């Protein structure tokens, strides 16, 4: 019956401990660079290069599978 309060107590004790940790933040220059780099992609979806890469990989895999299937068919046909 006391299980849940004990577990909530864990969260509270951890929060107490964590308050003593030194604050961390990304270097302002790095933050500015990251913001500038990522902001320009807002609403643009994944870059075209990534889509083209995925399409090329799919074509390559399908071609390989087709070639393997053809070879198996040839072997069975003999």
């Amino acid at each position, binding site marked *: 019956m006391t299980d849940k309060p*004990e*577990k909530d107590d*864990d*969260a509270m*004790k*951890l*929060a107490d*401990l*964590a308050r*003593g*940790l*030194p*604050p*961390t*933040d*990304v*270097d302002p220059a*790095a*933050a500015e660079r*990251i*913001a500038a*780099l*990522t*902001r*320009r*992609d*807002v*609403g*643009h*979806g*994944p*870059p075209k290069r990534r889509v083209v890469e995925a399409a090329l990989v799919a074509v390559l895999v399908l071609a390989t599978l087709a070639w393997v299937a053809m070879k198996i068919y040839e072997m069975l046909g003999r």
Partner: protein
Amino acid sequence: MEALTAETDWVAGLRRGDPGAFDAVFAAYRRRLYGYLVRMTRRRDVAEDLLQETFLRLAQHAKRLADDTRLGAWLFTVAHRLVQSWGRAQAVRAALAGDLPAQEPASTERSPLEALADTQTQLALERAFAALAPAYREVALLVGIEGLQPAEVAEILGVRPDAIRQRLARARAQLAEHLGDHR
């Protein structure tokens, strides 16, 4: 309630492709995400790279966000997955390199993260958190520092809430053990 309204506005702005909304989200979450990433990876350069990737994914998914998206949970889920991928890559690299230890060897010098500590207590705390197993450290950071609810953390990590409560208890016990006199 105000925070909720801001969040709803940000999501609406992101869905419209508004860079202003993105900047607001970046300002609100950058420090929190970086704190989580740097304490999980223990490397500032990696944390910066993963922070960039997290926000890049937000930017690229902006138009596909649901109206009721909770941005904090969404961003921490992405960050968690990136940390996992990075950890796996590190493990593979270590395996390929032979029997080198997966983690940094113990050193008496302060790490860049530890250098932020102003007092012995802060240093002891930083080291105690760093000594936790990643799965416990992650839960301790998300619940202890970020103030997320265990159910929300369970959703982010993709595990059952019971497992989170168990990890919380173990994290607390291990921290107490590590801290000893510094508590």
